[in-house]
């Protein structure tokens, strides 16, 4: 009698195992891909097109959108944090692999293959750099070609930050044309159009498929010495993607030769001028050209806000907590161990002088893109104020008090716990407060390396010239800073002895 139920149980169990195995196996077989895009509109649109295609063949797709610059994407691709992203042949040959003297697409393809990367054939449009001026102003000065600029050395030039430093950017352009201009400034590419319109700059770098060229009535100056190479749009992906997601690769390669310059310019215009979301523009393009129907998951403003808030709080919360846990002991060590103390204070001081964007980018080879590198960078930034204030708080306690504590017969640990740390608590809390406020602000830069947070709407808002969107990030970030500060003040009321605040009032 007892055998029967046992047998049934074991049969059921086996069936369950098979089912689980089946589920498990299929789930690992499901294609998971990560798409990257740069922080300008065309790249984001292409990123959405790639994502849609991936989803249309049931791959699970993550789109790391609007990453801050070519280098960030390139490093992420090499590290395997993203699988594919749209780029341009000219950028690959003249910027990323500039030292290698690659002449044509075959050269580039061969070099990429050595690195385990594959480049698609051109998608169909050439998005080269051009220099642009307001039509009426160019006409008045008689400027048609880049060479004509030489006759007007007083013109104010404003270039995108990336263009200022790129191998094919301003330095080599200036060399090639022997341009005499002194008044050259770097600024955000999307802001440059507004600069041109308002007259703060006279000449800027444009991408030939930028929608603004027509919209603002700009003249593209002829590259009469053929300085700029061809920037054919291509997709770069990791070779292992072919094995991992063969269907995705197959579908994506259908884009080759499919996107004409006109089509791209129209898509750019739909996003930048008609304010359509990139997901929608990408979906419309696929429906019309590849007959791929995409269902767009709409995210309401509310859920988006909470997602940004959650991301931001995660960045700030983890990095600040980590900093507090590490920095207070470091401050104590710095105080107790005189010579080493100066080393500790010096080191955390040096970290603080690294520009935040640079620090974020340094983290990518170590931790990839996304939340982890941003948290580490924020953590490092938050150390200094806490370490220094812990040190200062302990240092400011008079010898008389310290000796009185020792003379009572308290052990070193008890002196720290009962006397010196509580006395330094006010200074330590002030340090934490400073760190927290800096942290909340700096965390907005995390969006540049795909960490999300309130920086995301700010970044998108700058790109789309949408003040409302910028405020959706800037206002909550400012409010969060105020709330955090308020919380710590409340914390101070509760945890710092009134006896110490009393002294502060008297002083």
């Amino acid at each position, binding site marked *: 009698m007892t055998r029967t139920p046992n047998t049934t149980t074991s049969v059921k169990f086996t069936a369950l195992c098979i089912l689980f195995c089946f589920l498990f196996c299929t789930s690992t077989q499901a294609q998971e891909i990560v798409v990257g895009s740069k922080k300008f509109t065309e790249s984001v649109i292409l990123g959405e097109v790639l994502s849609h295609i991936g989803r249309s063949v049931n791959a699970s797709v993550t789109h790391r959108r609007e990453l801050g610059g070519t280098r960030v994407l390139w490093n992420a691709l090499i590290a395997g944090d993203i699988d594919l992203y749209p780029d341009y042949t000219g950028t690959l040959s003249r910027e990323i692999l500039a030292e290698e003297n690659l002449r044509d697409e075959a050269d580039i393809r061969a070099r990429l293959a050595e690195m385990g990367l594959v480049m698609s054939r051109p998608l169909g449009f050439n998005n080269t750099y051009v220099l642009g001026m307001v039509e009426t102003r160019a006409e008045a000065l008689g400027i048609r070609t880049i060479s004509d600029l030489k006759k007007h050395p007083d013109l104010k030039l404003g270039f995108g930050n990336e263009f200022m430093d790129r191998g094919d950017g301003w330095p080599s352009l200036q060399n090639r044309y022997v341009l005499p201009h002194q008044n050259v400034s770097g600024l955000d590419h999307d802001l440059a159009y507004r600069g041109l319109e308002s007259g703060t700059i006279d000449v800027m770098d444009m991408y030939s498929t930028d929608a603004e060229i027509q919209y603002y009535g700009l003249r593209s100056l002829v590259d009469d010495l053929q300085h700029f190479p061809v920037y054919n749009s291509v997709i770069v992906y990791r070779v292992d993607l072919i094995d991992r997601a063969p269907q995705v690769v197959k579908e994506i390669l259908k884009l080759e030769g499919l996107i004409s310059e006109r089509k791209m310019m129209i898509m750019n215009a739909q996003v930048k001028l008609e304010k359509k979301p990139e997901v929608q523009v990408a979906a419309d393009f696929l429906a019309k050209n590849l007959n791929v129907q995409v269902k767009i998951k709409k995210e309401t403003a509310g859920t988006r806000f909470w997602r940004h808030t959650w991301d931001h709080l995660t960045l700030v919360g983890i990095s600040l907590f980590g900093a507090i846990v590490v920095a207070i002991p470091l401050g104590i060590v710095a105080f107790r161990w005189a010579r080493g103390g100066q080393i500790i204070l010096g080191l955390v001081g040096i970290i603080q002088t690294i520009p935040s964007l640079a620090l974020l980018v340094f983290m990518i080879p170590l931790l990839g893109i996304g939340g982890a590198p941003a948290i580490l960078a924020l953590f490092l930034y938050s150390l200094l104020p806490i370490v220094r204030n812990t040190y200062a708080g302990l240092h400011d306690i*008079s010898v*008389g*008090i310290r*000796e*009185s*504590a*020792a*003379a*009572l*017969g*308290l*052990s070193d640990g*008890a002196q720290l716990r*009962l*006397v010196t740390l*509580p*006395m330094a*608590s006010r200074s330590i809390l002030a340090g934490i407060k400073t760190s927290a406020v800096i942290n909340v602000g700096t965390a907005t830069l995390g969006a540049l390396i795909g960490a999300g947070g309130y920086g995301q709407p700010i970044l998108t808002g700058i790109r789309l010239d949408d003040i409302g969107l910028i405020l959706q990030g800037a206002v909550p970030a400012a409010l969060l800073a105020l709330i955090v500060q308020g919380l710590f003040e409340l914390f101070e009321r509760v945890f*710092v*002895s*009134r*006896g*110490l605040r*009393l*002294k502060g009032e*008297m002083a």
Partner: protein
Amino acid sequence: MFEVTGVSKTFGDLQALREVDLSVQAEQTTVLIGPSGCGKSTMIRLMVGLVWPDEGTVTYKGQMLTPANVLSLRQKMGYVIQEGGLFPHLTARKNVALMANYLGWAEGRIDSRIETLATLTHFPADGLDRFPGELSGGQQQRVGLMRALMLDPDVLLLDEPLGALDPMIRADLQSDLRSIFQTLGKTVVMVTHDMGEAGFFGDQIVLMREGEIVQIGSLKNLMQSPAHKFVTQFIHAQRRPLESMARGEIVK
């Protein structure tokens, strides 16, 4: 109680003590006095193990002071400094009770001990829950004394306990202190730079100069049979201004 034997101590270039020997008698008040930099403060700090001798030894009840035993020995000594050394983040009561709490005394025992000490030191009961910043200098010193006496130590070490007080309060506290010492019968070592105060308190006065002991004895002893010209000079230097002015020697 304390035996200081052949102790030398330098701080950088400064020779604070040179081969000093001193014996502190139990249940007596020993006053260390001398001009600034004579080593009197270093001497008292040696006894509580805040500084360690370069050469020589300090013993307490026959036991040599070492970093290993100093924590437990300190609990048998009470130490008070010029500014009181109170912890500003704790109320008077918590300052006094800190060590007893640390050692895990029961609350009732702590409270009754504090009550006894407040009565002894003439400290107002309603001041116990104030923070040091809310107390006058004289009151702070009384709290410092209560804290030093909390564990009922055998020895009180006082480093210029009245130095920061104005003259009226100082006189008050002087007489209170002396009656406390007499009531409790403790061994007291006190540092001062005031000869009058030394005479007022000291069973034994130790006059120091430049890291050496010049003479040990009662005030009468020092005045009547000075061991060195310096002894007379020091005593007179402190007495002269007022007396001379009274005699009209200094006229402006």
